[in-house]
């Protein structure tokens, strides 16, 4: 009986924890449409673990909305909110992880 009571108490706490954790997600869903810009960095990352390191850290940089880490061509494409961050800040964040990051300029359109 005591075990059952413990279990009920734990389940209640668990439900509360899930709801608490879910609040920011619900919030994000209701948010207004944010501005989006895109930047591509050519980096010096050269291993799968380097790519993992970049992905795991850059995903949580302020203003980052989307990320595409390509090891094949050593590029990191970042979709970001220009009101919250900028390419310089993002490049600094990559350099802090130990890799050079140079912004790749869009190639001029061929006429």
């Amino acid at each position, binding site marked *: 009986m005591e*075990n059952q009571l413990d279990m009920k108490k*734990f389940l209640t706490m668990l439900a509360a924890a899930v709801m608490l*954790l879910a609040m920011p997600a619900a919030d994000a869903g209701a948010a207004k449409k944010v501005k989006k810009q895109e930047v591509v960095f050519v980096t010096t990352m050269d291993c*799968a*673990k380097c790519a993992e390191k970049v992905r795991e850290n850059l995903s949580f940089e302020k203003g980052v909305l989307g990320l595409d880490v390509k090891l094949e061509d050593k590029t990191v494409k970042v979709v970001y909110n220009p009101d919250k961050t900028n390419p310089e800040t993002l490049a600094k964040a990559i350099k802090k*992880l130990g890799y050079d990051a140079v912004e790749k300029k869009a190639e001029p359109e061929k006429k």
Partner: protein
Amino acid sequence: MKKIALFGALFVPSVLFAQMPDTTGIYGERKDTLQATVKVATQAGNYLPRGKDIKTEVISAAGLCKMACCNLAESFENSASVTVGYADAVTGARQIKLLGQSGIYTQMLDENRPVMRGLSAPFGLSYIPGQWLESIQISKGVASVINGVESMTGQINMEHRKPTDEKPLYVQGSIMADGKADLNVISALQLDEMQKWSTVILAHIDGNAHEMDMNGDKFRDDPTGLQMSLSNRWLYYDPSGLQVRFGVRAIQDRREGGQLSSIENPWTSKILNRSLDGYVKVGLPLDDDSASSIAMVADWNWQGMNSNFGLTTYDADQQSAFLNLLYQRELNESHKFTLGLSDMFDLYNEDLLRAFGSYSSSPLAAKTVLNTAGVFGEYTFHSGTKFSAIVGLRGDWYKDAGFKVSPRLTLKWAPSDDFVFRANGGRGIRYSTPLIDNFGVLSTSKIFKGSFAEHALEDAITMGANVTWYLPFGGSNNYISADYFRTDFLSQTICDYDAEPNTIFFYDGQSVTNNFFLDLSLEPFERFVVTLTGRYTQAEQTSKKSPDVFVMKEKPMVSRFKGVLNLQYSTNLNKWIFDFTASANGPCKVWDFMEDRYPGGYTETYPLLYAQVTRRFKGFDVYVGGENLTNYKQPDPIIGAENPFNEGFDASQVWGPLMGVRVYAGIRVTIWKTN
């Protein structure tokens, strides 16, 4: 690049793990991993990598986080290939089944060193914390001969977190509602600028102080106890190509199962396990273009066990040593061969006292030396990416059993990028260790008869084939795959509960298992992955009907089928991960003596549900989840629970969950190396 690939192959048999993460990826300038598939968009848990010579199911780090994953056994819960169960209802010893046979016939490898052999096997799965691992690779059937031929139904390789991981600190802790808690602390350090020297320290502690009895049989569902393990692994890499890996590990586990302590004169099982092991691996290229290389792998292990099961006591220790010397030469892109010598040495000391009711006997007090010395060769032919053939041959001298030859063949044919046909087959041989292989027999009040103290050679032929079609739409991990495997044991130590009343008879017999598998993986929309896997098993083994009459009949306690559905959804940037696993576990034929408890002679089919929610933040994750959410428990898992000291007591007939709903919560903290 050639040097890197060749070295990787020396340390990692190319048959199995040619693209293994970071075992090869640390070498040279680490550019080899540019070829690796980097799953940056999703957190792929289980997947089938393309291009491997043998079909290999990979459980990634993300997959290892799907369950509470306190240890290796639990990480197989969402795999249909591997079935996880308990050896008995009191000790907490976990066991797996692959291809309808006990896990003792699956070779366990720690970065391609054979581990969990003999006395280390019954509890070994509990001594590998899931959080110590980076990935697990499962392959069915028989593959390379390089690590011996003890793999008879498959191989499971564990990749630990690496010294080169740029994570100076990783901490994971979790607690379950039943009071079980675990903590892992891992630190990977690169000691110089050139990363010549690097090391990883892995520490683990788990404990369970709370007695739980969810089914009301007055027995603890899970033993209480405390386990600690500590490991330190080193890597030295010289730009000239020389590399040395070495490490040590120590484990102590004290556990107590059996009747609740509130009972007067309780039947208990107290087990103290201690283990110490060390290994060294050296690889050296012999020429500038590294077309040829040599490598050495050496391993030493000591395992001690002091245990009692009611009045029965079993004290044992084992010392094992393994040496593998390899020479590899790559003639060109199509032709490669490996030659080698190996030795596997085991020294067992066993002391058994059986006592229950009015019965008392000391049927085993022996020192046993087992030794296998072998010579082997493996030739690999590649015709681009379309076709490969690997022919392996070993000649081993087995102490007291003579010289045996074991051939193996692996074929792969990929007529297109999306379609792969594979087949493998060959012979497997191992020494049996009857009591250790059937550890649950100690949790019974039955008399042992027959060859339980002998170490006969078990001999099997396994053959199988697989077709995988990578679906030409959606993500790269969409596939349908079907397998068939058959294992014929020409000689197997059978542990028979039905030969005589209240007796467990050990004798040499045969068995046949046929296994069918179907796997489907789909990503119907971005970041939502559906995996459906199924297994069907037909298994027969020798049954002793009278002193001279043996017949083949359905192998008891092997579930006929298992189906697993896994759904995983992650939000953008994987900030939220939702995981749900449902499985249906098919019936097992029970032993004849149990049929009064199981009308029809079969156990029932039961469902299992698991769910987990993870919220990820910068540097840390928190997760909550639940196991066995249907709360299904095996009814009355202990036969004779009311009179455990007397004849008739049997806690070894476990086919379902012993515990009901268990919820848990945990946290993972990662500190990354920065400039």
